């Protein structure tokens, strides 16, 4: 089990994943970090050995976005969708579809930013097209889980060494 985890993950229905996390920053900053193409690739990279070489975001209702992740072996995966609702700095609703697709159908992701006393709670609600999509998404984490924790440890140690050096 995780030691001090600020992240909560719930599955309130068989088609949903809801994640909540508190950040020590004002919500405009969080909104920017989630929606600006120059900022998203700096954190939304999933595994530490993956990068996001492509990040296109046309932030308006009906506008499209596209993320491409690349692994060390050259494997690429992308996610793309269309914005359904854009209310800065409070709320973004967008569709999501992965390529190569693990499944048919798309998800609808709602991201809510709430600020209180200078801290921001981000709630990410993933409404999956079907229960199978939801389960496949959750399961994809487990398959990579073990190798992944070592990657992460290594990354943390590297970051520490770098901050000491600078």
């Amino acid at each position, binding site marked *: 089990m995780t030691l001090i985890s*600020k992240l909560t993950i719930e599955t309130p229905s068989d088609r949903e994943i809801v994640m909540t996390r508190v950040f020590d*920053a004002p919500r405009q*900053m969080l909104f*920017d970090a989630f929606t600006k193409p120059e900022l998203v690739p700096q954190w*939304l990279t999933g595994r*530490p050995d993956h990068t996001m070489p492509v990040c296109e975001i046309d932030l308006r209702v009906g506008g499209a976005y596209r993320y491409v992740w690349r692994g060390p072996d050259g494997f690429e995966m992308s996610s793309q969708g269309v914005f359904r609702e854009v209310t800065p700095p409070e709320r973004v609703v967008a569709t999501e579809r992965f390529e190569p697709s693990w499944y048919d159908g798309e998800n609808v992701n709602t991201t809510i930013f709430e600020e209180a006393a200078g801290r921001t709670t981000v709630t990410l609600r993933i409404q999956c097209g079907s229960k199978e999509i939801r389960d*496949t998404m959750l399961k994809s984490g487990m398959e*990579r889980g073990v190798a992944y924790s070592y990657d*992460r440890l290594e990354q943390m140690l590297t970051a520490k060494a770098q901050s000491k050096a600078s």
Partner: protein
Amino acid sequence: MNVKDPNLNSLDSTFSALADPTRRAILARLAKGEASVLELAEPFALSQPAISKHLRVLERAGLISRSREGQRRPCRIEGHRLSEASRWLDGYRRIWEANFNRLDRLLERMKSEQKVTSERSRRSNPR
């Protein structure tokens, strides 16, 4: 349903069983020790048949078992299935925790840049 993956199928029932807040509360109670249907019904504003219905869902999902002996038939939690489900979530959690930890560091950089910018503008615009 994805019939090619038996692991996925067996976890389907676990996740739908866990989706209900009353059933999660029942599991939380059982994590402290065995309890009968009556004992479980007490803290919830629910009838005994309603609790029994939840217990059947949990039993089918392999999350609890019920003793066949005696009138009391106490329920007990079956930890292995729960840990399988939480292991599942853990991998997903690790990925998102790594994302959000990187985001924390990005926010720190953004905050210090903002500070530098506002200090600069204060210096260039003295009152």
